[in-house]
């Protein structure tokens, strides 16, 4: 049995020669276990779906969805009027409708202001 120091002093060639002289014992059933492990690995790889099969289809689906999002909103409605004067008349009518509806709100505010001023005016009259 060599000491650690003796082993450390050996050259690389001497170490290789020593290693070649003594055959390492192979554990029982190693070959069988290796074959089984390799077979199991091959089976697992075969069972796993190949990503290349579905990636193009999924990419196409995503691209189609994105294209639909981009293209569909661009198909706008058709102009109601062909004549700009008629269109303008309708725009004017829309503005007048908006003004009327806003006026309703302003009328309510004016009424509220008058109601709010009533106590103040009454007090003023009493003080006079």
């Amino acid at each position, binding site marked *: 049995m060599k000491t650690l120091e003796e082993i450390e002093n050996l050259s690389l060639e001497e170490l290789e020669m020593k290693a070649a002289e003594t055959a390492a014992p192979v554990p029982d059933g190693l070959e069988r276990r290796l074959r089984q492990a390799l077979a199991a690995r091959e089976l697992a790889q075969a069972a796993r779906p190949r990503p290349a099969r579905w990636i193009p289809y*999924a990419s196409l689906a995503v691209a189609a*969805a994105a294209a639909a999002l981009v293209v569909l*909103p661009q198909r706008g*409605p058709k102009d109601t009027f062909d004549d700009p004067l008629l269109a*303008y008349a*309708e*725009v*004017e009518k829309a503005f*007048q409708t908006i003004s009327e509806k806003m006026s309703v*709100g302003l009328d309510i505010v004016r009424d509220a202001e008058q109601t709010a001023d009533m106590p103040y005016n009454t007090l003023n009259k009493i003080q006079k």
Partner: protein
Amino acid sequence: MKRIIILFAALLLSFSAFAQNGKSIYQKYSDAENVSAVYVSPAMFRMIGQIPDLEVGQENVNLTPVIRSLTGLYILNSENAAINGSLRADAERFINSGRYELLMEAKDSGETVRIYTVGNDRVIEGFVMLAAEASEVTFICLDGQMPRKDFEELFSKAMRK
């Protein structure tokens, strides 16, 4: 990975299905019965902008800056009781999903009028008026880059009449 991509595609489709704007609301309801609908496109607005001496009623009001800045006008007036609720809900969803601010709300004689705008101090990018009563819903949506000053001046003059 496959599931993620399918989920992503489904999400994209669902977002597009739920996305609401003036155009989509117009397209959804414009062909329904008892609904009057008006759409004016950006191209038509450009043509209107070429008309000289635009007037509102009897008072001369320069509409040109506002008209030229518009890119879309959608008007829906529904007297169809079957869709009024849905139209109102869609319009409110559209307003709530955007950055719209309530400009005015008035309730009078069973009618509720809400006016919303979106934009900044200088420019109004969107204007929505939703007027709803028991039997009628009116939805007016204006898109564009309207100068706020011109827009407010226009309506203040029109309201003074």
